[in-house]
């Protein structure tokens, strides 16, 4: 436990010291929210557009932080030999990975809180009504995307271009799942693809809880799909995760 806290503290320091990561992972969804709410008016999902966009950016931020941010961090550490180096120390791998995961969750939690504050300041969006439900929803989504983030590292072979690869996954997913607005008018084939993506279910859950005053535990389809994706990610990660850069 001491090692976990030690590592968590240092993970936070390393994250915030790296300006690129802090800007790209933490700030980017906040920036998008500010831009989108500046240009979209009217309503979304039966609520003011800014409310719906706030929900959309919570989902996008989750994928961007827990999935892409975590994957990038692990890939760069793997390719630089940092993961291999840490394996030679007495730090147990479980303590290490849980601390890395905990750290990225802290980043996401701060981001989500900042989104609510920013929404309040810019567009007077309401605070979430069911606090426990929204926390659980974000935690569930964060966990599922972190599992997928661990899994994707096994498929990205080098540091070069890894950031582009992850964005090619995250941005279209966010678009198809409805982070930037409703998908009702999308062509059917795009909607079908969207329906297969985990972010769609996370956004459904966020919308129900934040926009329509529901509770997470009534959205069992969303919960089941997210849990399923998360478990699938962890299973793949257990087979594909590597600690060392590819030889030569």
């Amino acid at each position, binding site marked *: 436990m001491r090692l976990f806290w030690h590592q968590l503290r240092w993970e936070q320091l*390393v994250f915030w*010291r790296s300006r690129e990561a802090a800007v790209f992972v933490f700030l980017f969804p906040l920036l998008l929210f500010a831009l989108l709410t500046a240009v979209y008016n009217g309503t979304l999902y039966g609520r003011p557009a800014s409310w719906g966009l706030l929900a959309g950016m919570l989902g996008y931020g989750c994928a961007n932080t827990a999935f892409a941010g975590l994957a990038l961090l692990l890939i760069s550490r793997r390719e630089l030999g940092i993961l*291999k180096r840490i*394996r*030679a120390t007495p730090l147990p791998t479980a303590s290490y990975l849980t601390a890395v995961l905990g750290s990225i969750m802290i980043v996401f939690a701060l981001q989500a809180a900042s989104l609510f504050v920013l929404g309040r300041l810019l567009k007077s969006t309401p605070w979430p009504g069911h606090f426990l439900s929204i926390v659980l929803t974000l935690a569930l989504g964060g966990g599922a995307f972190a599992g997928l983030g661990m899994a994707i590292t096994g498929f990205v072979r080098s540091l070069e271009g890894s950031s582009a690869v992850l964005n090619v996954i995250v941005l279209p997913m966010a678009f198809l799942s409805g982070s930037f607005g409703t998908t009702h008018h999308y062509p059917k084939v795009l909607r079908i693809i969207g329906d297969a993506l985990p972010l769609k279910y996370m956004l459904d859950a966020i919308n129900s809880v934040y926009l329509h005053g529901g509770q997470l535990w009534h959205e069992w389809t969303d919960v089941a799909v997210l849990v399923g994706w998360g478990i699938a990610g962890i299973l793949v990660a257990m087979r594909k995760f590597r600690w060392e850069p590819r030889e030569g």
Partner: protein
Amino acid sequence: MSAIVVEELRKSYGGNEAVRGVSFRINEGEVFGLLGPNGAGKTTTVEILEGYRERDSGRVDVLGFDPARAEQEYRERIGVVLQQSQLFANLTVRETHRLFAGYYRHPRDVDEVIDLVGLGEKRDERVKTLSGGQKRRLDLGVALVGDPDLVFLDEPTTGFDPAARRAAWEMIRSLRSLGKTILLTTHYLDEAEQLADRVAVMRAGRIIREGAPAELTGDTSETEVRYRRNGQVVVVHTTDPTKLLYELTEQALAEGRELEGLTVRRPTLEDVYLALTGDDDA
């Protein structure tokens, strides 16, 4: 007391047998050099001892542990400098040492270690501002911060300029005076000759020669004599240099000419090494 015992160690990757029955012992407090060209199996051997690879067969005992079991207790007692690895660019030298010190139950004083590896003046600089040689010293500092009994150094001076290399050698000598056991791999002969109490030369997955550097060079009894005659370099190998030199100088004196460029050379470790590994490396 042996710090490391390796018997009949074997390891294959796919169909390629990288390590083919390697045996050696390293005593406590000894600096042991594993020499050989790239692909000889040095790194595979060392990575099995460090616990990164599982062996196919053979016995390995390091400080009383089997490294394949990757116990925390074992990792408390070893320090590892990898061939290629980087650390966090945005942490300072001191922060990096503190981060790693936190992994050990009985770490050394962080500032003491930083001074030992000669980074005292860079203590509060970010890692990304360090030169290549300074980064290697940081690697070494991080390997020492847990106060290990045994230190693995995988090609610690590759890519160094001559001055940085001398400094690194001094540092490794100072480790030895602290009583650490050191397993060093290198493909620099002078490095092994300078630092190691004993060396083993590996080629194609086997140890082909083992002993103190002086012993290795001593068991080839040939001496090389060179001089120029009419502008041509003449090289003679002899097991009886006294007689040869007497004859050469007598003849030259009689003819009233100088033995230009005369050198008499005992074989160095490099000659022995090249003779041993030559046909494979070409």
